[in-house]
């Protein structure tokens, strides 16, 4: 029998967690979509942001949500510097070169965190309570994280679709060779995009540390979840990343409750591979076409 109260609780938890995961993945989708580079180090940027927010909380008593105002800009600069030092040199190289160069960054960052903080879990439990809405318990900290995610998605969307720089970024994503003659400085757009992507990773990291603890090895899992969300949501799609993140959150919440928390990742990893393959072989498009046909058949009279 379906327990509605329980399901409402599970869905709410899932949506709130998923929003925060989406926030973390949003930077990756921006970089992936615009620069067409697989940043394997994205998870470690989030990791370092989590540690920075932890330090701000542990030593200066700064709340993780307030810390986003510091960590975000710092990571924007961090991203700009990384782009200038490393990414710029491999952007025109083979995929292997891109993967291995960012793997190098991953090794540096992850072991830097290991060197400074060791393997003990770190967190920043800022002591938020819970509220209850219509019998559903909501952790305040997840709610605030979710709100930050939604607001940032909105801002990013407006930035990409309502400003001139946003237009230049979207043009570069579509075709760098065509954007250049229209006066777009591709190199600067790449730097800006990477900075923005890492800045978002920074915000995502400092929100994430409010909800869960971190060890250096977490970076691998964070990276893969981010990739799953980005791929399911469609490359470069900000709103797609948000919906995919929410979906993953809900799946995770249900599997964790009904079966086991350690079975949730294998299931959505399998989903991820399935989607990748459906998309690459064009079967996904065909299935969608069939479904559309099915509906067209059913509502045939109505559509005309």
């Amino acid at each position, binding site marked *: 029998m379906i327990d509605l109260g329980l399901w409402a609780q599970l869905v709410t938890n899932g949506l709130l967690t998923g929003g925060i995961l989406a926030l973390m993945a949003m930077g990756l989708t921006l970089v992936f979509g615009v620069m067409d580079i697989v940043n394997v180090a994205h998870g470690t940027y989030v990791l370092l942001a989590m540690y920075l927010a932890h330090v701000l909380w542990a030593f200066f008593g700064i709340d993780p949500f307030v810390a986003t105002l510091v960590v975000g800009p710092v990571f924007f600069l961090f991203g700009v510097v990384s782009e200038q030092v490393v990414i710029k040199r491999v952007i025109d190289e083979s995929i292997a070169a891109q993967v*291995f*160069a960012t793997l190098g960054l991953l*090794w540096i960052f992850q072991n830097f965190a290991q060197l400074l903080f060791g393997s003990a879990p770190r967190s920043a439990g800022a002591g938020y309570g819970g509220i209850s809405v219509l019998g559903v318990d909501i952790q305040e900290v997840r709610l605030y994280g979710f709100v930050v995610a939604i607001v940032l998605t909105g801002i990013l969307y407006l930035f990409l679709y309502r400003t001139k720089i946003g237009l230049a970024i979207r043009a570069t994503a579509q075709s760098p060779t065509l954007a250049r003659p229209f006066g777009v400085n591709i190199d600067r757009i790449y730097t800006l995009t990477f900075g923005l992507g890492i800045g978002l990773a920074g915000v995502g990291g400092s929100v994430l540390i409010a909800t869960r603890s971190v060890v250096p090895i977490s970076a691998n899992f964070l990276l893969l979840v981010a990739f799953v969300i980005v791929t399911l949501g469609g490359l470069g799609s900000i709103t797609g990343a948000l919906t995919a993140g929410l979906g993953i959150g809900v799946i995770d919440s249900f599997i964790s409750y009904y079966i086991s928390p350690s079975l949730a990742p294998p299931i959505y990893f*399998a989903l991820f591979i399935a989607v990748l*393959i459906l998309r690459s072989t064009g079967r996904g498009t065909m299935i969608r076409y069939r479904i559309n046909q099915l509906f067209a058949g059913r509502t045939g009279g109505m559509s005309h």
Partner: protein
Amino acid sequence: MRDVASALARPPVYLGIALVIAAAFLPGVLATKWVHLLILTYIITVAAISWNLIGGFGGQISLGNSVFFGLTGYSIGILMVTFELPYIVAFAVGMVLTVMAALVIGYPSFKLTGHYFALATITVVEGMRFLARYFRDFTGGERGFSLVPATVTGDPLLNLSQTGHYRLALGLLVVAFLMSVWFRYSKIGYYMMAIRDDQVAASSLGIDVPRYKMYTWLLCAVLTGLAGAMYATYIQYLDPQYMFSVNQSVLYAITPVIGGAGTLLGPIIGTFLVFPMQHMAITEFGGAYGSATYMVYGALLIVLIVYAPDGVLPKLRFIGEWVNRHAPRRAPAESEASSTESPPDP
């Protein structure tokens, strides 16, 4: 017979054989600690050599080879301890499972190209780690899995002395290297290099791309599985964090790239450059220094990718030339003839 003789007369060949024979007697000279380090290095080298088949010669960046390593290791452990089967049966089942896993992973994944292939393979490893945790009744979960009960029942391979394990690992390394030499000069090897350089062109020339990718992938899986079996046999303790580790998977891929991807000696040089130093830093000075050395390797990797994408090996070519010039060889006329016949040095 004459082919064998002329092949043996080439300096790299007989010097290599001499080196292996000398290496086989190292445990008599070295302390236990160093022999242990060498065994681990040989195991990683085997995994690196097998990555080099699919990644170096084939250009398919797999970051999922840990799956085969872990699967064979766990099969041997679980079948020997829980089901009390003899080693050879456990090993055979492990190999069959590895091949099956390679088919299941490879068949869909090879529809993907470039970074999507890398992403799909890396998620398989992380997924397997979570599965190993979920089926804790079988795998021991986070606590790991010990093969010591099987040692007590007296299996000859598990009860080998350290020197025995050392020679086993060395033998495995030699086998893996010979396999990669065969692969390099076989039809599949040339096909894979053509696919790496231009998949569309290779396909249009009539090469059955998915089939040869799959053959290479299976060979790679079997060799990595052998490395995993060797690890389980020697260490006799399986930790999901290590057996199904993304970081190990990345290590198997990065060492050939540092040494020189798509060359025969690249994976060996890369592993011997990276692994012993890092392992020593951890065991001698504690984890913090291990992390520091890994950071240095990360930076080294980036510098290599940017300034010397072919790896370290081409920079060491002068050693090979020096050896060729100064090492004794057969009469000039004959060696001339043999060198034109035989393929160029790797």
